[in-house]
């Protein structure tokens, strides 16, 4: 079979420059229009932004491997800043770790969380409903996951203050070593050491996800080091992204008053609102894969060893997949198939927990807030790969 290939269009724009990080969508539109695969001079990597190509890279985990790391550097050549996580592994190493996690986080174990996860959401939203205005990030999105998630994993109270800065390091490291990266890594050793300490068996309670993961060591499925890394993966992946997910959902809903009214009439739709908001404002916007063998994607030849920057957030707004209103929030849209949680082998294991947290917060807020609207411009956060807000001032009418 002859495959006709052409050169990737070369883009001089830098996806990691400040303007593109603060407002990514105009650039992502240009990137999609430039062709199926582009070459980014700034990072020396190829870029895919269309749904079809992103889906292909995510699902073909043999051609587009993860053990090269999710950042622009190949961590196989140049050891990374920490032992590789499950996200930075391929089968068969990935397989046993994934199996251990899936055995621990599944519908029945997550269902049991609804009860402990609800009272903190009630308490927080009751307090907020008494105010006319608040910051949806600092006063809600950042507070709620930190109240419930570390308890679910079963880590001690001591050292929890390191979780947010640690998550910030982990995700910013999927971008280049720019000033954002360097800032995130200030006091990095201290944060990493504190989080690693909380992943040890003796520091975890007996019932949380952490202890359940360690049980798989007794079963002989995983090693002690893998158990530590899996607990670490939960702690780093489970906090920031959920905070961003809650914040992004509220940032969208504050702009769509009719949607809020519809949700008040039918709170059962809350989870669909969250799903559509995740599509539109995906917290995890992009990461790299490494090309394992010479291949062709979208008619472009990709050499072995090349890095591919996968734009999840752009795929989730590709008009070829989502239609001409891809940039709009549509409560009626079936957002199923979005790649905000990834797709395929590395698809987010904690997805049901994240969805539960986001749904509970939104439902409790809907109960107590009749209307919500922006109270000034939201401040987007400067982050290499996550999309979210540092501050999101809102004005509300209590129900």
């Amino acid at each position: 079979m002859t495959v006709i290939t052409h050169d990737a269009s070369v883009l001089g724009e830098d996806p990691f420059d400040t303007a593109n990080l603060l407002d990514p969508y105009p650039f992502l539109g240009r990137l999609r229009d430039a062709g199926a695969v582009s070459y980014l001079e700034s990072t020396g990597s190829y870029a895919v932004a269309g749904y079809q190509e992103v889906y292909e890279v995510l699902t073909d985990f043999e051609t587009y491997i993860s053990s090269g790391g999710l950042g622009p550097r190949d961590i196989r050549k140049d050891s990374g800043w920490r032992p590789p996580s499950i996200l930075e592994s391929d089968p068969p190493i990935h397989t046993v770790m994934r199996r251990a996690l899936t055995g621990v986080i599944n519908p029945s174990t997550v269902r049991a969380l609804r009860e402990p996860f609800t009272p903190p959401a009630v308490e927080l939203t009751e307090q907020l409903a008494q105010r006319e205005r608040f910051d949806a990030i600092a006063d809600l999105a950042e507070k709620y996951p930190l109240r419930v998630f570390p308890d679910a994993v079963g880590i001690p109270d001591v050292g929890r203050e390191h979780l947010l800065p640690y998550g910030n390091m982990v995700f910013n490291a999927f971008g280049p070593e720019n000033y954002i990266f360097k800032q995130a890594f200030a006091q990095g050793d201290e944060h990493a050491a504190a989080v690693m300490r909380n992943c040890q068996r003796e520091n975890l309670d007996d019932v949380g996800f952490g202890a359940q993961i360690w049980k798989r060591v007794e079963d002989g499925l995983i090693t002690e080091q893998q158990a530590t890394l899996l607990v670490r993966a939960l702690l780093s992946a489970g906090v920031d992204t959920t905070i961003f997910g809650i914040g992004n959902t509220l940032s969208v809903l504050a702009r769509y008053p009719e949607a809020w009214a519809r949700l008040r009439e039918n709170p059962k739709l809350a989870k669909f609102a969250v799903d559509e908001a995740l599509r539109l404002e995906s917290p995890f916007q992009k990461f790299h894969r490494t090309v394992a063998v010479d291949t062709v994607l979208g008619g472009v030849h990709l050499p072995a060893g090349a890095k591919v920057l996968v734009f999840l957030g752009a795929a989730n707004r590709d008009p070829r997949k989502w239609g001409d209103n891809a940039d709009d929030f549509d409560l009626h849209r079936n957002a199923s198939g979005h790649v905000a949680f990834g797709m395929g082998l590395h698809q987010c294991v904690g997805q049901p927990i994240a969805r539960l947290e986001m749904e509970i917060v939104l439902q409790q807020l809907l109960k107590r807030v009749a209307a919500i609207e922006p109270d000034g411009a939201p401040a987007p956060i400067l982050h290499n790969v996550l999309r979210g807000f540092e501050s999101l001032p809102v004005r509300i009418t209590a129900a």
Partner: protein
Amino acid sequence: MSASAGATIDAVVDQVDSVADQVVSLVLRRADGQPFQPWQPGAHIDVHVGDGLVRQYSLCSSPDELDHLRIGVLHVPDSRGGSKAVHALLAGTPLTISEPRNNFPMRDSRRYLFLAGGIGITPLIPMLEAAEAAGKEWTLVYGGRSRNTMAFAQQLEDRYGPDRIRIIAEDEAGRLDLDQILGMPRAHMLVYACGPGGLLGAVEERCMGWPPGALHTERFVASTLGAAAANAPFEVELARTGTTVTVPNDKTILEAVEEVGVRVLSSCRGGLCGTCETQIISGEPEHRDAVLSQEDRDAGEVMLVCVSRAAAGCPRLVLDL
């Protein structure tokens, strides 16, 4: 589209062959000489075996040949008599059956791994043919106690060759080494497995390390039900809207509910991710997913509507939708 509830066909047993120790193959034709309705790999038929007993048997003939259907039936001595009755059938006997139905459809992909335990080989045979015809990359791993108990093993090996067909007889090579077979997930590879519950449980456990949606299973011992109704159309009442929908054989609850405009959050649509988990208000489900624990199944409070159905003898489920 599909046969309506209880619709039956008068058929006749055309040929009976012993194809392995305790396994017979039956070739069935319509009594009126007409062809059967088209069917897809993975399909089964109901066989009315007398005394009100109805059993499901997967089709192992070719979907290209609609003038007959073939089933393979294992004699299970301690069962409730279905297989014994089938084993007593002779060529020329009239037999009441249903049109083919499919609860184990084959999704299009680039690669397949077929995994059979014993008589679980039957629904996979038409799948191998389809995969081969479409030029897909595929392998069958077929485990059984000994070669003489493994129906169709030799014919499959002769037809497709030992590279494609891996016969693992326990008395020669030990049991299937699932850690080895499933230890290395392959991109775009779907796993279709059929066999005894113990084997499928072990397969499900290992496939937790595979991409969500890769594994598809059919428990040929129809989860202790073994009665006709498990594959009959049933009604689902949506408690929140008061709507009632009928779920035909060829649709999932999820599809039927979506068709009347009710939304259910879903993701893999294959019983593997749990996103579509729905509360059951009343009625008894037949769980066909790979995510709920035994405890959950026994409690019967939730179900995954993308794959699971109403249990035998339960004409109506009321769901919190």
